[in-house]
């Protein structure tokens, strides 16, 4: 079997740009998704059912429908409504963030609820407000437990950002498909893309492992 490295070399400037865009999209999704997820998770945990309701439905919708569909809805529906034209990068960031936020909200909720009730009671009995108890006692402990599932979610997010190719966002998979279309070749473009994703996800796992170990020994 001949493997055409010359194709990959020819496309390497685009693949590098695509990789950078994938990293950018993923980072944006992770950051916005995490902030939004914390907010939605806390919203869902509210005592008053009626106020928690919108957050519950948010999570149900974004976990219960395919990201593929969400990207199309946001790209052709929501973004034009907001800025008057389509924009693949904006649509991808919005879709990835909103989607990740739903999963991250559940991770936050599970993390917070996994902390023994006695911790909150002890904090409150010392005169701390609910917010102080959350900030100094509950969240620092919950955060440690959230790192593995959050890491998982971030890895999923990197991989799913490849769906952005369908709305012509020039990330890794987009260039992979362009290559494949131009040369009618399968292995070179898609194997290259796979290896780039693998490098990204393995690097992230590695960083998360270091973080986890460091927090454990603290």
């Amino acid at each position, binding site marked *: 079997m001949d493997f055409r490295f010359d194709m990959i070399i020819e496309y390497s400037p685009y693949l590098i740009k695509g990789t950078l865009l994938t990293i950018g999209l993923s980072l944006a999704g992770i950051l916005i998704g995490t902030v939004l997820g914390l907010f939605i998770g806390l919203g869902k945990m509210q005592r008053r059912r009626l106020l928690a309701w919108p957050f519950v439905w948010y999570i149900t919708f974004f976990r219960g429908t395919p990201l593929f569909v969400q990207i199309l809805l946001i790209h052709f529906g929501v973004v034009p409504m907001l800025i008057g034209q389509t924009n693949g990068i904006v649509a991808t960031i919005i879709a990835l963030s909103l989607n990740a936020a739903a999963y991250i909200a559940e991770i936050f909720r599970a993390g917070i609820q996994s902390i023994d009730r006695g911790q909150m009671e002890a904090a409150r009995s010392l*005169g701390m407000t609910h917010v102080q108890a959350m900030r100094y006692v509950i969240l620092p*402990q919950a955060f440690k437990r959230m790192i593995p599932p959050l890491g998982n979610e971030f890895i999923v997010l990197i991989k799913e950002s490849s769906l952005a190719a369908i709305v012509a966002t020039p990330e890794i998979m987009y260039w992979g498909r362009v290559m494949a279309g131009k040369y009618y070749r399968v292995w070179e473009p898609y194997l290259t893309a796979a290896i780039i994703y693998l490098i990204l996800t393995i690097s992230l796992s590695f960083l998360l492992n270091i973080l986890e170990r460091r927090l454990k020994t603290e």
Partner: protein
Amino acid sequence: MIKVENLQKTFGSHKVLNGINVVVQPQEVVVVIGPSGSGKSTFLRCINLLETITDGHVLIEEVDITDKSSNINKVREEVGMVFQHFNLFPHKTVMENITLAPLKVRGIPEQQARSKGMELLKKVGLEDKAEAYPDSLSGGQKQRVAIARALAMEPKIMLFDEPTSALDPEMVGEVLEVIKQLAREGMTMVVVTHEMGFAREVGDRVIFMDGGLIIEENKPREIFENPQHERTKAFLSKVL
């Protein structure tokens, strides 16, 4: 100091406290005994509103904490609580456990909080553990830290909910000793316990609870040697 009037508490449809009336005087040590499930913990937890109160009133130093307008966080600053399972903050050192609330709630300077913390650790015999994490301590040591942590807020009242029930027998003594010391210093305390020897020695008054009611209350000697009610007799015959 504490005045409880017709305190009632229901969980869903389950009535746990059926109208409790108690007055605790300053410097008094009240020991609460009774079978498991009789509502002792719930009673204690109502005193600093860790449970919402269904009906009745609780007054701490004349402040009605059931009144919506009273600041419950302020009240809790004055009422320390020690739990059966210690509930130390595992992500913080012993010293940080003790100084957290004084720093964040009272806003006192770090230096002052630490020296006060050290003083309290000496008092409970753990000055060498200041930088240790709770996980490295024995049960008895954990509970002594928990007591020091509560005392750091300089409460006027201390509540103990079975402080020795989760301990190995050989560690019960060291914790009771600290509580006895507090009693000698004149701390107002309500102590739920199964340690009858302790109740007899330290209690100014013993309350026997059953079925969410106070069945009998009296001086320890009277209760233990001359119980008036059948249920008290039955309970004491089992535990003494």
